[in-house]
């Protein structure tokens, strides 16, 4: 419990630091935008860069954003939980004895990193969805706040993602039995406790890892470009499309991860709090795990 509080405090410190730094960066200067944009020459270029490019990505962006993206996002956040609900009702959760031998799976540092990442990522998903479906909430101050939270959390997550990557990358390279794992969908379609082919992390977790870290990095970078319009407009449009599409994938996997850890495997959440997994669970779900 003390560790929990400690990690909570750490998270808050990171947030506070990021807020102070980012506010300082954004302090407005008096004659901003004078020479930068409006010398006679830049005029033409600036504008050429705007209208000239519209036919390239302006139109696709407009169509995707207005007609497609929100529908897919709606699909992602309704269909995936729906599928999982069916799974839960039909197949049900796997449960393993927690009173048996325990194996230290995640050390303290790993768990702290995970939870900071988890909270910031969850907030990114929630605020991201709030922005996408902002119209439902009437926009304005709440959604503006969501946007600001999105920006802060992006900065937090960008840092955490680096740690995550370094901690876990050695266990995350694909192996041959990962293919098998994929074919049997990790054994989640059956109630039987049959050992599934997976090392410390199964193929699903590996996919999640790569997408969350590398994909998260891409999200952070594209988000940074969109935030500051740091690039010519067509690049910004492209990045916005990438940000949205990748966002769909990440939300899908995020929801999967949530379901797995909270519902599909009973007590799974506990392992990320205490750091220990029951040996039975390891033997079944991570049958190729090499004990030290």
């Amino acid at each position, binding site marked *: 419990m003390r560790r929990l509080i400690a990690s909570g405090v750490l998270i808050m410190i990171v947030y506070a630091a990021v807020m102070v730094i980012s506010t300082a960066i954004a302090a407005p200067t008096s004659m901003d*935008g*004078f*020479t930068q944009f*409006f*010398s*006679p*020459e830049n005029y033409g270029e600036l504008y050429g860069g705007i209208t000239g490019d519209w036919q390239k990505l302006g139109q696709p962006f407009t169509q995707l954003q207005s007609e497609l993206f929100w529908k897919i996002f709606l699909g992602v956040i309704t269909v995936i939980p729906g599928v999982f609900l069916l799974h839960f009702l039909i197949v049900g959760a796997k449960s393993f004895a927690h009173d048996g031998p325990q194996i230290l799976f995640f050390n303290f540092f790993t768990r702290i990193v995970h939870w900071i990442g988890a909270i910031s990522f969850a907030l990114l998903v929630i605020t991201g969805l709030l922005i996408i479906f902002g119209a439902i909430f009437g926009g304005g101050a709440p959604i503006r706040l969501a946007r600001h939270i999105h920006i802060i959390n992006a900065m937090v997550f960008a840092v955490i993602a680096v740690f995550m990557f370094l901690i876990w990358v050695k266990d995350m390279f694909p192996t041959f039995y990962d293919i098998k794992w994929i074919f049997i969908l990790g054994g989640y379609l059956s109630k039987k406790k049959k050992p599934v082919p997976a090392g410390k992390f199964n193929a699903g977790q590996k996919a999640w890892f790569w997408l969350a870290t590398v994909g998260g990095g891409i999200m952070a970078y594209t988000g940074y470009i969109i935030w500051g319009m740091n690039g010519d407009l067509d690049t910004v449009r492209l990045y916005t499309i990438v940000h949205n599409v990748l966002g769909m994938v990440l939300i899908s996997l995020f929801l999967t991860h949530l379901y797995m850890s909270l519902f599909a495997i009973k007590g799974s959440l506990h392992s990320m709090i205490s750091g220990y997994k029951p040996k039975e669970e390891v033997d079944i779900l991570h049958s190729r795990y090499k004990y030290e």
Partner: protein
Amino acid sequence: MTNSLNDIRHTKSMIFIGSNATENHPVSMQHILHAKEVNNAPIIVVDPRFTKLAAKATEFVRVRPGSDCAFIMGLVNEVIANGWEDKEFIRTRVAGYQEMVEVAKHYTPEAVEDVTGIPAEQTRRVAKILAQNRPTSLTWCMGGTQHTIGSSITRAFCILQLVLGNMGKSGGGTNIFRGHDNVQGATDMCVLSHSLPGYYGLSDGAWKHWCRVWDVDYDYIVGRFPDKEWMGKKGFTLARWYEGVLAEEELETPSPVKALIQWGCGTNSNSQYNRVVKALNKLELLVIVDPFPTAAAALTKTDNVYLLPGASQYETSGSVTSTSRQFQWRFKVVDPVYDSKDDYEIMSLLVSKLGFADEFYKNIKEVPEDITREINKGTLTIGYNGQTPERIKKHMENWHTFDIEDLQAKGGPCDGDYYGMPWPCWTEEHPGTPILYDVSKPVAEGGLPFRNRFGLEKTYDSSGRKENQLAADGVYNPGSEVKGGYPEFKDVVPGTNWKTDLTQETLKTAIKRGMAPFGNARARCVVWNFPDQVPIHREPLHSPRPDLIEKYPTYEDQPNHYRVMTRYKSEQKPELVKEFPYVLTTGRMVEHMGGGAETRSSKYLSELQPEMYAEINPRLANNLGIRKDDMVVIESPEGSKIKVKAFITPRVDDKTIFLPYHFAGTLMGESYLKDYPEGHEPYVVGDPGNTVTNYGYDIITQIQATKDGLCKVTRA
């Protein structure tokens, strides 16, 4: 301006020489483009730069700065050579024609090409366009006048219009666009050193006339001068006042200039700005009256500088005369803000302190109406009589009744009047004269012949021919008692003439007889009291064509030219071009105005034009290794330098550098913003372009030659 801005709507072709109306007179463009669109009138733009006006032109003629006269005389020659001149107009209304033709003959299209760089074929084409599309409206501005031969150039413009028979016609005329809403008014009031108001000159008769108007004793005025002889002598000009302070040149003055009042004047519009700054710091007293601190306020390092916050035009009222010679009334919008005072109040306080308020304000009880009335009373030469404050205000209140096409009120309280009663408006019943020298209308309805100003007869020096200066028989305004030329009116009231008869009886008599008070004469092509009787080309003092200096040399040096020695021949050195190979010309940009004290203090205008720059052709920039946004140093033959940003653009050709002159606040990149009064710094500062404009002054008017200097350009 002989016609009006609106009258350009009726033109069949337009030629602009040294005028960039799109940037300097944007409002005029609605009439210019109307003529282009509706009349299909070609627009010919003659300029060293491909200006924004050239972008609207049908024919762009790139002329070498300072060679305008050669081009125009070339057009005159080409028109005459093809028999396109208006023979009847010339026979009846033009004097000295044959003498002029003899001179013009020299300017064949090929000779013009050599001097101006304009292809002979283009000169021929332009002449043909002008001949086939009459009447032509001819416009010039500072690009035509700011040369050592500026006065000859302007006369050449007039001669072209006379030869084509475009004077006194709707759609024709010489239409000089003035730079502010009251430059014409300021000129008419002769805010100059060589004339009393209304172009009366400085003769005894002129002084006596104005003393009668002011109702002060002539001897009292004489007593104000150190010696009577100085009353009749020209003073220093705006272009060279600082020489009077510095006293480094040979002067003809009782004492050097010690004090200066700058009333709404940005010093950085003066050429040779380095010397101006030196003079400002040598003055014993400098008073600056302006809504914004001008560059002079920041530049002076001395203590004896006084800044008086003058009110803007919106905080005061009074009459102004527009470029179309129209009178308008400025109404006050708000009281002067903060501690500023309007010009009338500052003047009144100054005059009271100096102790001649009684004489100064003898006729003026109600400000500003009585000032206009005093002007009405005395300025008879150009018919400032009929525009009473009451009539002006009536016009302002009935804008909607005036026709946009001919500016005449159709019905309403101003029925029959032309808008603003363009001068001459001889009496309070006169409608104003919308087009000068138009003999198709009765004088009482705005018609006018050419003025009889220079005697009745003249024997020309060049040919020995004697010519009657009055108009030929058959040329007269409808209703005229005399059906031909007649001299000016005098002795209607004994001892006076039409210019000095304050009872205005002479004017009324003339109008009643259907005649112009100033006579009916010919326009002269030969001006025998000028150094060049017929306009000829002379190379600029600092010429980029040393080979032409011998063929077209400049004038002899002029001692006591407006009190100061002015060099011509001794300044014209053929070898100069080797070290200073590029032609330097200056101009305005649409966002800023004059010295820029006001516009550079507007955040929005500053946002649009935030930097001083030099326009450089891409080819020249590449040859000199100058890239976009590089800083360049421009050096004048006088040794002064500025550091500005390079603006690489094909607007100028590869031998010419263009500078806008609105900037001040830095010198060689070093800012003196800290020297402005706190909180009054302009948003935008830059090196003053006039620091590097060259030596050179017009032979008649002494206007500065800012358009045709030489310079050296290096990458900073």
